């Protein structure tokens, strides 16, 4: 009892204290809350709002925007976007795995330089890169010319203005997000594990499936999320690589805000996109948590 006042006195000072750290944290957090969280809430509110004649947002409660989402025209776009994004994920995984594997395990002392060479172009301007890619994939571009030369394509084969073109754009845009986590996982991989695998399972193929692949599953999962998120929200690839039949949800959103001026519908579409992504994120988090629980056991 006698000790109570003394202990409360020492508490106040807080040598383990958090006060300064809280103050440091506050401006950034308030900024993010004010600009980002508030604006996301605003999108949700506007999804059920209306606009006045000038197109300025008005608050209200009108489910027209949300109800319009059920329109087959929009569900088709959503389904297509999902399909493109998932296909992009799979292709990115198929490309990134051998590349990351080769660099991490056979890169030797050029390992760091090689992975830097993968990363650097992805910080170059996205639009310019995508534009260059569309030139490369164009009908007279080097890729189609090479394919025609080896007989894998004829004069009528097109990549641009097809779904394949859009997916190729998305893959080119975001494959780095798959390579980095895979490379990190493969680099962390204990090489003695592989050697032990050789002892236990014999062949390199069996070793790969029983040792290497399970050890890099978390990296692949992270990569899938990192590719899925931007691929789902992209609108540049569909614009540059695709035609009118290949538009994605991002193009719809852009259209509703810039041409159509239907902001409630645009907001509703944005919320729908967020919802899809949240479901994806949630699945990923559950998966990794289960993996971690298993690893602990």
């Amino acid at each position: 009892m006698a000790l109570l006042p003394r202990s409360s006195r020492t508490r106040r000072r807080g040598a383990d204290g958090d006060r300064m750290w809280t103050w440091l944290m506050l401006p950034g957090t308030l900024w993010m809350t004010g600009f980002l969280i508030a604006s996301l809430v605003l999108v949700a509110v506007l999804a059920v709002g209306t606009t006045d004649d000038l197109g300025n947002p008005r608050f209200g409660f009108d489910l027209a925007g949300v109800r319009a989402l059920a329109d087959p025209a929009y569900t088709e776009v959503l389904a297509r976007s999902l399909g493109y994004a998932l296909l992009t994920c799979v292709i990115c995984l198929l490309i990134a795995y051998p590349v990351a594997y080769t660099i991490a395990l056979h890169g030797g002392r050029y390992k760091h330089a090689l992975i830097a060479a993968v990363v650097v172009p992805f910080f170059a301007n996205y639009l310019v890169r995508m534009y260059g890619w569309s030139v490369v994939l164009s009908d007279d571009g080097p890729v189609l010319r090479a394919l025609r030369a080896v007989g894998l394509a004829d004069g009528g084969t097109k990549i641009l203005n097809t779904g394949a073109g859009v997916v190729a754009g998305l893959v080119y845009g975001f494959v780095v997000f798959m390579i980095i986590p895979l490379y990190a996982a493969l680099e962390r991989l204990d090489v003695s594990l592989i050697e032990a695998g050789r002892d236990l399972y014999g062949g390199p193929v069996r070793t790969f499936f029983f040792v290497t692949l399970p050890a890099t599953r978390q990296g692949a999962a992270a990569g899938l999320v990192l590719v899925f998120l931007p691929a789902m929200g992209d609108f540049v690839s569909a614009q540059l690589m695709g035609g009118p039949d290949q538009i994605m949800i991002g193009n719809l959103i852009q259209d509703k805000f810039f041409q159509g001026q239907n902001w409630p519908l645009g907001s509703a579409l944005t919320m729908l996109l967020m919802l899809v992504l949240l479901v994806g994120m949630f699945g990923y988090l559950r998966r990794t948590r289960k993996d971690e629980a298993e690893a602990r056991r």
Partner: protein
Amino acid sequence: MTLLRLPSSTAPARPAARTRTRRGRADRRPRILIALTGLFFALLYLPIAVVALFSFNSKKSLTVFGGFSLRWYRAFVHDDVLISSLGTSLRISLVAMAGSVVLGVALALGLVRCRTRLGSLAGLIMLVPLVTPEIVTGVASMLLFKGLGVALSTGTVMLSEITFSISYVTVILRSRVAALNPEVEEAAMDLGATRWQAVRLVTLPALLPAVLASAVLIFALVFDDFVLAYFTTGVDPQPLSVRIYSAIRFGLQPTINAVGTLMLAGSICLIALALFIPRLFGRRGGLDILSGE
């Protein structure tokens, strides 16, 4: 590679064994994997090379190369609209860099050290931009400014870019702060520094390489960003990347090839700089700057 990592003491003693393992490794080098990786790199750099090549084209064509010329660079230099856009982009990048680095470094320090519930909430908020596609952030920012009755302008782009960039700075710096030895700050206080002086005199200098690297990175990211800028910019002046977007969409002038090439070269230099900065300070440089790991 694995077999080459013999303990150094055994290597000089047994040169025969060493050559044997080296040959053994070469035999098992997976040719298919290396060929695939080579193809990947070729396709990765081909578009960039194409843009760069045609920026030096003497013809207006975007498919046929007519000979080397600097005419599109000259055209860019004399294009007042593009030059003013360049200035706008530079201003936006500088302001966003300064703002997000100050806020982000403080946030990173606070997040790592502050173990209150507010701290974990702030950590969650900080992650939101990283899991939100840019189009959503762009739409949301635009709606916020419209809702507040703020006319879209260069200023609104700056505000949005800062918001988005804080997360990057924080993610990069957070792992650095966490890796710092807390005893170093305690040592400073032990030697008479106040808590704030300890941060200023000891912690911030220790973080300096990472802070500089993240600043360079943010500059490059903001300069190249177009989605956020596209949604939050006013009509005039527009950032360079928004101009490029319009140009690409509505019939391309070859001038854009020249601008694009300059931007590519600029970003690549900046990224290389960001990767190199830690080495200037005698630290292990590297990609962890980019991934925040």
